[in-house]
């Protein structure tokens, strides 16, 4: 250290060290953002698919997701895209094949979360018609899912 500089304040004026301060501030922001719990379960809605509004106070659970579009039922966990107009007309063999896939999926889960695997979160847009919703719920029950949770947007907005 240059001891002479300490004796001469005019030559080295006291300055605020902004660099480390901003650095720490930046780290804190990142830490706070990461630590913020917005929801225990994150559900990503497909683009242009607006969920319905609900006053329900039920919390979300980590169930497998099923997406219902205008024409299709997408069961991502077993890689099945089914045409909604044909789900009622599927042959028994085909239904059993899908049912087998669901059973395999459930068995592959850890024992602690296995019971959750038989429930599904149903995702669809608010304008979808009841006929599609009913057909989807009926088929999901048929292939082995016990309960269906309709995902909606809370009143917090």
């Amino acid at each position, binding site marked *: 250290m240059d001891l002479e500089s300490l004796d001469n304040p005019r030559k080295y004026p006291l300055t605020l060290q902004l660099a480390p301060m901003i650095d720490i501030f930046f780290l804190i922001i990142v830490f706070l953002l990461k630590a913020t719990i917005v929801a225990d379960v994150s559900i990503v809605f497909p683009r242009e698919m607006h969920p*319905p509004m609900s006053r329900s106070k039920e919390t979300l659970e980590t169930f497998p997701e099923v997406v219902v579009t205008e024409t299709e039922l997408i069961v991502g966990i077993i890689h099945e895209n089914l045409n909604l107009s044909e789900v009622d007309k599927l042959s028994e063999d085909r239904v059993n094949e899908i049912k087998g896939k669901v059973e395999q999926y459930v068995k592959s889960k850890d024992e602690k979360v296995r019971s959750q695997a038989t429930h599904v979160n149903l995702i669809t847009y608010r304008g979808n018609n009841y006929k599609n919703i009913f057909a989807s719920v009926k088929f999901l029950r048929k292939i082995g899912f016990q309960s269906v949770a309709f995902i*909606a947007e809370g009143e917090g907005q």
Partner: protein
Amino acid sequence: MSLDSTELHRRHVPEPELVPILDALTCIIFFLMYTTTFMELTSVILPPSSTSLVSKADPSKGIPVIPKLFIDIVDRTIVVKMKWSGKNPGSTTKKMDRTQPERYSKELQGVVETMVADFAAKFPDEKSLQVGVSERGTYQELISVMDGITKSVPDVVLLSPDDVKNMNEEDNGS
């Protein structure tokens, strides 16, 4: 190593200007945070399906009530009809305008809530209600109806849209 040579070495090492970079990054974070929209999601649960045994030989249990709520859409009108069987069968009907089927209808939710609350007051033991919506009904309308029901009756069972059609035919006597 002497102090002079260290200073000389430092002068030749290129250092990135971190301060403006961090400063800009901090500004960007605030901008991103303000433009982000957080969506609070909730769920309306259809409980697991179950069967219940009703013995005809046991007179203490009486005839099952089996309450049903039908949401029919006729032109621009929503017809909310509740029917039940049992010892004292009955039904109530209310009509309302259908304005925006894809928007949350407080009116529809309110009508259903009142109707189901009245029913629940008469039959406090009933824990499930069967709900059927017309084919033309939207998912948003179903959720509004379910919001109205679950305050008084916890379990909802969905009925086919054909049941709503059949109910109309029965009522019209065809």
